[in-house]
C-alpha cells in the first residue's frame, strides 16, 4: 500500500516537525514493514503559474502555436507549444528557462524557426498524472507567477508498506490510521476529521439487510443538486501518487475516503437506485461486473441487489449498470460493512481481489460507515456548495459493535516485559493509540476502540504487544533463562534416525533422499500398479498417500538409472497404513540384473549389521509371503528381531523392474522405525576368554542339488562339541559351502588328537545327514 506523507502530515498537529524521510525505520519496528520510501516532485523546479495572453498559429506547423505567457514578470514571454488546449486566458504550468523537468535543464531553443523560451507543461511532464492530452489547466483564480510547488502538493514522500504486515491491522488500511500510529510513535496529536453535519429530517432510503450475519451495517445517503463533477488538482495528485487513476469527483471521492479512512464506498447514480437489498446470490446466476467480465455466482456470494436485480458483488466490485453516468446531478452513497470471511471467500472464488475486498477481508470497524459518508459530504460540499441532502442518513445496523474492556494485570505485563514501566508511561502509550485507561492498584482497565477490537485486540496479551512495541522492541535486552539442570530427554527417535542415516551414509556409501508423501502418478502408471489409500482432496494427480515407502521411491530410482548403473539410496519417512502414520526406514539397492544375488545378500548383511551395531541384536530372516503384486513372489525375507517382525526385504519382480529399466535388479528393505525405536539395545556382559590359543578349521560341504543353506544350517546346529567356540559360513562356490570352526579349550592347549577326534566326529555327523564333505 502506498502512503503519502503530505496526507499524513495534514492529520497531525505540528506534523511538519516530523522527519518524514526517516520516521519509517522506526515505523517498521513499531508497527509494520516499510518496503520503500521515495521522494517525488524533487526532479522539477522553476515552474510557475502563467497565463496565456496571446495565441497565434505557428506559421510552419499544423498543430503548434506561438504563445505569449504572463508569468508575473514585466514582459510576457514567447513560448512555442504543441498542446491542443492552448487558448488566451488559460492559466497553465510554465517552466522557465533554466528550470528542470526529470532533472533535465530547459533551454531557449527555436522550434521550426521560432524561439521558444521555456515550455508549458502537461500533468505527465510534471510527474503528477498520466495525462498528456494537453497542458495543465489551473482554475481562473490561480495566482499568476506563483511557484506550482507552493500552489499544489507536488513535493511529497511516498512510502510503500508491505500489505502482508497489515493483515492484522484493519485500522491501518487508510492514511488516517497510519497517521494515528505516527502521532503515537512521535508523541504528536492526531487531529480530528472535519465532517459534514447531516440532519435526519427527511425520508429514509429503502435499504434491507437479509443476512445480518454477513452484512453488519449498511449506511446510505442521497445527495442532490451536484453541478461540479471535477476533481480538484491537489486530490488528483494525491490519488496519482498513491496509485489510483482520477476519474471524476464523485468516483474519486469514494476512492479518496477509502484511502483516507480505509472504508470502501460506492456512489451510484440516484436515478437507477430503487430499493437496496443485501443478500446471497442463487447458485448458477451470472453477473457482469464493472470490468465487463461475466461472473458465475454461487449461493455463498453476498450481493447488493437493486429492486430485483443484482447491483454489485458486496464488498468486491460493482456492476456495469451501477456505474455513475456523467450527466447525473444526484448520487446515492453506499458505505457498508461485511463479514470478512465471506468477502474473502467470494473474492478468492471469483479470482477478483479488489482494493475494497482487500480491506473488507481484514475485518473493518463497522462504526466508521457513517463517519465516511459525513466526511465525503464535507469534501463534496467544498466543490459543490449548493448540494442538497435529499434523504436521511439511512443506517441499517442490526447489532451495534460496542467498545469492550480488557483488564490488564500488571504482574503479567511485567513478566512479559521483563521490567516495570510506570502507570503514566503505560497510560500515555495506550491513549495515544486510541485506548482509554483506568489505573488500578494491580491492573489497568482498558477500553478498546472498535477500530482495534474487530480483529487484533481481544485479550491482555494483545495490550502487552501494544505496550512492548511502543516501548520500543529495540530497547529489550537478550536475557538468559533461569538455570535449570533437569534432564529432559523425552524422545530418542530423532537421535536414532540420525544414527541410522549416518551409519548408512558412512559404512555403506549410501545417499539419503527426500521424497514426497504421495505416490508419483506417472510412475504408478508406468509400472502398471494401482494404489488405493488415503487421498488428497481436490487433486487428480499425485494424490494417493504412500503405504509402501520403498515403492514410492521408484520414481527416484528411475531418475538415477539415467546416470548410474548401480546405486544405493535410503530415506526415513512417513507412510500411511490403515489410516495411521507410520515411520519407515527404506533402503533401495539398485544394480544390474546379473548382480541380483550380490545386492540381495548385501541387503541381508546391511540389516544384520544395522541391528548388531546399533541395537546389539541378532536378526533372523524368515520367508516372506508377499501380498504386493509388484514384489517377487519367491524371493524376499521377513526381518525378525526378538521374535517380532521388524520389516521386510523385497525384490521388485522382473516384470515391474523391466517397465522401469531393462536388465536391472532392485532390492528394497523396509524397516518399521516406530518399532525399531522401542527396541532397547541388549547390554552383553563381559565374558572370560581362554588363556589357551584357539584353532581354526575349515570344512567344505557339498550340498545335493536343490537344497539350500538352511538345510546345512540345521545339520550344523545339531552337531555338538565342547571344543566349539563358534562357527560360521565363510564362502560358497556353486553347491559347495565352506564352514569355519573355531575350536579351543579353557583348560589346555588343544593337541593333535583332540583335533583328529573332532574331525572324525564331524565328518561322520555330516555323512549321517546324507551330505558329503571334501576331506
Amino acid at each position: 500500500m502506498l502512503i503519502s506523507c503530505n496526507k499524513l502530515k495534514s492529520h497531525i498537529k505540528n506534523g511538519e516537525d516530523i522527519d518524514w524521510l526517516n520516521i519509517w525505520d522506526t515505523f517498521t519496528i513499531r508497527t509494520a514493514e516499510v518496503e520503500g520510501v521515495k521522494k517525488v516532485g524533487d526532479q522539477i523546479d522553476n515552474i510557475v503559474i502563467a497565463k496565456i495572453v496571446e495565441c497565434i498559429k505557428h506559421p510552419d506547423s499544423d498543430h503548434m502555436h506561438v504563445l505569449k505567457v504572463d508569468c508575473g514578470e514585466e514582459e510576457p514571454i514567447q513560448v512555442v507549444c504543441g498542446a491542443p488546449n492552448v487558448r488566451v486566458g488559460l492559466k497553465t504550468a510554465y517552466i522557465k528557462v533554466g528550470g528542470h523537468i526529470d532533472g533535465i535543464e530547459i533551454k531557449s531553443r527555436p522550434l521550426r524557426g521560432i524561439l521558444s523560451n521555456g515550455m508549458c507543461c502537461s500533468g505527465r511532464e510534471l510527474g503528477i498524472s498520466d495525462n498528456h492530452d494537453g497542458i495543465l489547466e489551473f482554475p481562473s483564480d490561480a495566482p499568476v507567477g506563483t511557484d506550482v510547488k507552493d500552489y499544489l502538493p507536488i513535493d511529497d514522500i511516498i512510502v510503500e508498506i508491505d500489505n502482508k504486515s497489515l493483515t492484522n491491522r484493519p485500522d491501518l488500511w487508510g492514511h488516517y490510521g497510519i497517521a494515528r500510529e505516527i502521532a503515537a510513535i512521535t508523541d504528536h496529536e492526531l487531529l480530528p476529521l472535519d465532517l459534514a453535519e447531516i440532519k435526519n429530517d427527511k425520508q429514509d432510503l429503502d435499504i434491507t439487510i437479509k443476512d445480518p450475519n454477513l452484512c453488519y451495517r449498511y449506511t446510505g445517503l442521497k445527495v442532490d443538486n451536484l453541478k461540479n463533477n471535477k476533481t480538484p488538482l491537489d486530490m488528483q495528485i494525491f490519488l496519482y501518487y498513491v496509485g489510483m487513476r482520477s476519474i471524476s469527483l464523485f468516483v474519486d471521492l469514494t476512492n479518496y475516503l477509502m484511502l483516507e479512512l480505509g472504508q470502501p464506498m460506492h456512489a451510484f447514480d440516484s436515478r437507477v437506485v430503487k430499493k437496496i437489498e443485501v443478500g446471497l446470490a442463487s447458485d448458477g446466476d451470472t453477473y457482469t461486473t464493472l470490468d465487463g467480465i461475466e461472473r458465475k455466482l454461487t449461493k455463498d456470494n453476498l450481493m447488493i441487489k437493486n429492486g430485483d436485480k443484482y447491483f454489485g458483488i458486496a464488498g468486491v466490485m460493482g456492476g456495469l449498470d451501477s456505474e455513475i453516468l456523467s450527466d447525473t446531478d444526484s448520487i446515492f452513497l453506499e458505505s457498508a460493512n461485511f463479514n470478512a470471511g465471506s468477502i474473502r471467500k467470494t473474492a478468492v472464488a471469483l479470482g477478483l481481489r479488489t482494493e475494497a475486498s482487500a480491506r473488507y477481508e481484514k475485518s473493518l470497524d463497522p462504526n466508521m460507515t457513517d463517519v465516511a459518508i459525513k466526511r465525503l459530504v464535507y469534501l463534496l460540499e467544498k466543490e459543490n456548495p449548493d448540494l442538497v441532502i435529499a434523504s436521511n442518513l439511512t443506517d441499517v445496523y442490526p447489532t451495534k459493535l460496542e467498545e469492550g474492556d480488557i483488564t490488564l494485570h500488571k504482574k503479567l505485563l511485567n513478566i512479559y516485559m521483563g521490567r516495570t514501566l510506570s502507570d503514566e508511561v503505560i497510560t500515555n502509550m495506550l491513549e495515544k493509540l486510541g485506548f482509554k485507561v483506568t489505573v488500578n492498584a494491580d491492573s489497568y482497565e482498558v477500553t478498546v476502540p472498535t477500530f482495534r477490537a474487530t480483529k487484533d485486540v481481544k485479550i491482555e496479551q494483545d495490550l502487552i504487544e501494544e505496550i512492548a512495541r511502543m516501548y520500543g522492541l529495540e530497547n529489550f535486552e537478550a536475557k538468559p533463562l533461569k538455570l535449570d539442570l533437569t534432564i529432559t530427554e523425552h524422545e530418542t527417535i530423532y537421535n536414532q534416525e540420525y544414527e541410522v542415516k549416518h551409519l548408512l551414509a558412512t559404512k555403506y556409501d549410501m545417499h539419503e533422499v527426500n521424497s514426497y508423501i504421495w505416490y508419483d502418478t506417472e510412475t504408478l502408471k508406468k509400472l502398471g500398479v494401482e494404489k488405493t489409500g488415503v487421498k488428497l482432496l481436490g487433486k487428480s494427480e499425485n494424490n494417493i498417500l504412500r503405504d509402501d515407502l520403498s515403492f514410492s521411491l521408484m520414481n527416484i530410482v528411475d531418475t538415477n538409472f539415467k546416470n548410474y548403473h548401480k546405486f544405493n539410496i535410503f530415506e526415513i519417512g512417513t507412510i500411511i497404513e490403515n489410516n495411521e502414520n507410520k515411520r519407515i526406514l527404506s533402503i533401495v539397492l539398485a544394480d544390474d540384473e546379473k548382480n541380483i544375488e550380490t545386492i540381495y545378500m548385501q541387503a541381508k548383511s546391511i540389516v544384520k549389521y544395522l541391528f548388531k551395531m546399533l541395537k546389539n541384536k541378532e536378526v533372523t530372516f524368515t520367508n516372506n509371503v508377499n501380498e504386493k503384486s509388484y514384489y517377487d513372489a519367491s524371493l524376499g525375507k521377513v526381518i525378525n528381531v526378538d521374535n517380532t517382525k521388524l520389516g521386510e526385504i523385497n525384490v521388485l519382480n522382473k516384470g515391474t523392474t523391466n517397465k522401469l529399466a531393462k536388465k536391472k535388479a532392485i532390492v528394497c528393505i523396509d524397516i518399521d522405525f516406530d518399532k525399531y525405536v522401542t527396541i532397547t539395545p541388549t547390554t552383553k556382559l563381559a565374558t572370560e576368554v581362554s588363556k589357551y590359543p584357539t584353532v581354526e578349521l575349515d570344512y567344505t560341504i557339498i550340498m545335493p542339488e536343490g537344497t539350500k543353506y538352511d538345510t546345512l544350517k540345521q545339520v550344523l546346529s545339531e552337531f555338538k562339541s565342547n571344543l566349539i567356540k563358534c562357527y560360521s559360513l565363510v564362502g560358497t562356490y556353486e553347491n559347495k559351502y565352506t564352514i569355519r570352526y573355531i575350536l579351543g579349550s579353557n583348560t589346555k592347549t588343544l593337541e593333535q588328537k583332540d583335533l583328529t577326534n573332532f574331525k572324525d566326529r564331524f565328518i561322520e555327523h555330516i555323512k549321517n545327514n546324507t551330505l558329503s564333505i571334501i576331506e
Partner: protein
Amino acid sequence: MEKELESLITSLKSELKKCTKEADILNVKSKYVGKKSRIAEIMSSLKEMSVEDKRKYGSLINNTKKEMENIVIDSLESLESKTNIVFDDTIDYDVENGSLHPVTIVAKEVTDCLKKMGFTVVNGPEMESEYYNFEALNVPKDHPARDMQDTYYLDNGMLLRTQTSGNQIHAMEKYGAPLKVCSPGRVFRNEDLDANHENTFFQVEGMVIDKEISIENLLYVMQQILSEVMQCPITLRLRPGFFPFTEPSYEIDMECTICKGKGCATCKNSGWIEIVPGGMVHPNVLRAGGVDPEKYTGFAFGIGLTRLAMMKYKISDIRVLNSGDIRYLKNFDIK
C-alpha cells in the same frame, strides 16, 4: 696399525654398500667381524704385544671392532626398513562416498545447538488432525491458512500438517510444563512448484514454557541459536508480526551478515534479513496443551530448515532437494 684398522672400516663399508639381501650382509659380517676375520686376528694378537703397545693400541682395536659391528647392525636395519614387495604405489583410486541430505545436515546442526541448551527433540505425525494443526493453535475457522488453496486435506477427514507447530500441543499434552522442546519435521503446503516454492519442506519448531518467561528470553535464545548456526556473532531485531498461535508475535530479523546492515542485494537494501517468526505462546495454545496460562508463560519459534539449507549451500532451485537425484545430493557428503 692405525692405517690398517682404518682401511678395514673403509672396505667393510664399501662391501656392505653392494649388499641388497640380508644374506649378503651376513656373509660380509662373518668375513669382517667373524671369528676368522682380520680384526679377530688383531684382537687375539693383542695379548702378545708389549705393555707399551697394549696401552697404545688396546682401546683403539676394541673401539674399531665395536664400530665395525655397529656398521653391520645399521646396515641390517636399513635393509629392513624397505619392503621387498614391488608394486605401483602411485596408483590413486577415487573414493566412493555416501551422503546425507542437506536438510538432514542443517537439522542436525540446529537441533544439536538446541540440545546443548537443554532442549529435547520431539516428534509428531505428518498426517495430522485439523484440531492439532489449526484449532488447538488458535487458528480461527475462517483463517486463510485453512483454505483448500493452502492446505492439503485428506479424504479421511485428516490433513497433511502445514507446520510443525502442532507438536507444541502434542508435547504439552505428553510432558506438561515446564518444557523445552524442539521438533524438526516435514510440512506440506498446497503450492505450485517453482524455483522458490515447494509443497513439501522442513521446519524446526521450538518452544519454551516456564514460570516468568519474557520477550527478552525469546530474544536471548534466538541470538544464541542463530549465532551458533551461522557460526558468527549476529545482531537481531524484533519486528511486530502476526501469527494466531503467538501473542505478541514477532518477525525476527537478522542484521545482514554480508553488508553488516548497510544495505545490499542480499537484504534488498534494508540491512536486515527476515529469518525466524516467533513470539510468546498464545494463552489459548497453552490451554489447549493443558498448561495453565495463569501460572506459565512461554515462547515459540519456527525455523525454516529447507530455507536455511538453501542459504548455507547456496542452493538456487528448491526443487532439487526432493528430486532424489544423486548427482546433486552426493556433493553434500556427511557434514
